[in-house]
């Protein structure tokens, strides 16, 4: 493993200064993805700036109106176990509780989870200089692509890895980012970007910016659920996941958000499925229609056509569970 300096910050200002002070410095929260990149020789930073001791970034707070704020350093285990989140934002609790393994969830932060890099094996292997690493091709196109995307691909085709991002986009969350120019708040649905914008990145985090907080608007009155499909029942990456959040009015759906994970280069809003639900009562018929509409525009690769059927079935199942 490449050797580096390890700096520890206690405030976000210190962290930003420590980053700016030394070229090729990167942030580290739980470190799960950073250490993986170091071990795979994908990065060679001069300095890791550890933000785990920065105060004020590890609270979960629900205000009187039911709006939720989660500090970027809160671990996945804490999100999954939080009583308020379990009650009002069950899809988020579930996604975080099923991500990775108990040992990883005790260390991985929700901020790092949103900002982790893709898991496509060509990206993760040093020997493949793929388009995500400045090369000129995505090896998944002609290679082994059973875990790659059916939506939003081109010129790179890796699925967005974050389990937490899927329900967060469904709940209309926003991210608070603190940078050299000040603090900005970005809707999670706009933060993640397609590879045709820039194949080397998955989001719009700016140079020197720190994700400090995730804000989720009150979900009182919303019905929501999350489910994923894995090859193993136990700990494994999902091959498809789905989060659904709906508001009802007089027995039919007033608004709906349906977000798919592991099938697109970003957390993928199935807008046609959302439209299929609006105005309909929740039930077997609307669940079926949403499932069918969810795969609108799917472009499977050579080995991942099975994901199309899984999306249909999973969306149907999650919507039906809300009826």
């Amino acid at each position, binding site marked *: 493993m490449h050797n580096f*300096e390890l700096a520890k910050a206690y405030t976000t*200002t210190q962290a930003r200064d420590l980053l700016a002070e030394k070229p090729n410095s990167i942030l580290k929260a739980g470190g799960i993805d950073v250490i993986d990149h170091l071990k795979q020789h994908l990065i060679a930073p001069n300095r890791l700036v550890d933000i785990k001791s920065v105060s004020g970034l590890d609270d979960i707070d629900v205000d009187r109106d039911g709006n939720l704020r989660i500090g970027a350093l809160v671990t996945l285990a804490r999100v999954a176990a939080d009583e308020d989140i379990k009650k009002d934002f069950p899809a988020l609790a579930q996604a975080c509780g099923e991500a990775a393994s108990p040992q990883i969830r005790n260390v991985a932060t929700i901020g790092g989870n949103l900002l982790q890099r893709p898991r496509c094996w060509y990206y993760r292997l040093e020997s493949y200089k793929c388009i995500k690493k400045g090369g000129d091709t995505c090896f998944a196109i002609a290679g082994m692509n059973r875990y790659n995307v059916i939506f939003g691909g081109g010129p790179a085709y890796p699925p967005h890895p974050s389990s937490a991002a899927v329900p967060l986009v469904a709940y209309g969350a926003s991210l608070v980012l603190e940078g050299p120019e000040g603090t900005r708040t970005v809707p999670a649905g706009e933060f993640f970007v397609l590879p045709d914008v820039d194949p080397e990145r998955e989001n719009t985090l700016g140079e020197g910016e720190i994700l400090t907080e995730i804000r989720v608007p009150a979900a009182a009155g919303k019905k929501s659920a999350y489910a994923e499909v894995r090859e193993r029942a*136990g700990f494994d990456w999902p091959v498809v996941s789905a989060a659904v959040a709906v508001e009802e009015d007089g027995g039919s759906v007033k608004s709906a958000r349906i977000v798919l994970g592991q099938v697109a280069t970003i957390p993928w809003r199935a807008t046609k499925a959302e439209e299929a639900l609006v105005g309909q009562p929740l039930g077997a018929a609307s669940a079926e229609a949403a499932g069918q509409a969810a795969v609108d525009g799917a472009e499977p690769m050579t080995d991942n056509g099975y994901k199309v059927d899984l999306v249909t079935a999973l969306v149907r199942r999650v919507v039906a569970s809300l009826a």
Partner: protein
Amino acid sequence: MARKLPAAEDQSRAPGFSRRNFLKTAGVGAAASTVVGVGGACTKEPTVIGPDATTLRLRVNGTTQTVTVEPRVTLLNALRNELDLTGAKEVCNRGACGGCTVLLDGDPIKACMMLAADAEGHEITTVEGLGSPDEMSPLQKAFVEADALQCGFCTPGFVVSGTALLAKNPDPTLDEIKDGLAGNLCRCGTYSRIFEAVQKTARRG
């Protein structure tokens, strides 16, 4: 850049050393080049260690130990190579198998995916800290009785994860046991006996 933090190292040998002092002192070394606009007197100064080896103080199995390692050294390698605690195993070395599971303040973590420096200030418990061959913990004993191992390479990780599970949930259902142990893999496929050992221990209270 004052990387070696000699002041802090000297002080670590002096009586009355505390972690707080260490951070303060280390901070002075780092702050010389790290000019940071910190306001309140109560805000700690940032610290910088490495890339050369520095001395870390780790609380392992109830005692304080020092290791002198580069910041890139994982907790797993510090435990195994510096402290001769070889119970935690390096298997996948990527956070995927649980062979390296240890407790950090009572919670199971994968020691291969944590830097040793990040474990400073926390209580680390390895399988050696749970019991010894002469004085086995209830779960260790149950593993022997249930013959819950074949090659045994995964066993320390399962015992540590199982211990953490039972501490949180003394009477788990089979599904809860499977969830609690989901981060540990057994290449030999001894799962049913492992689950049995955990259930046995739970029943005995």
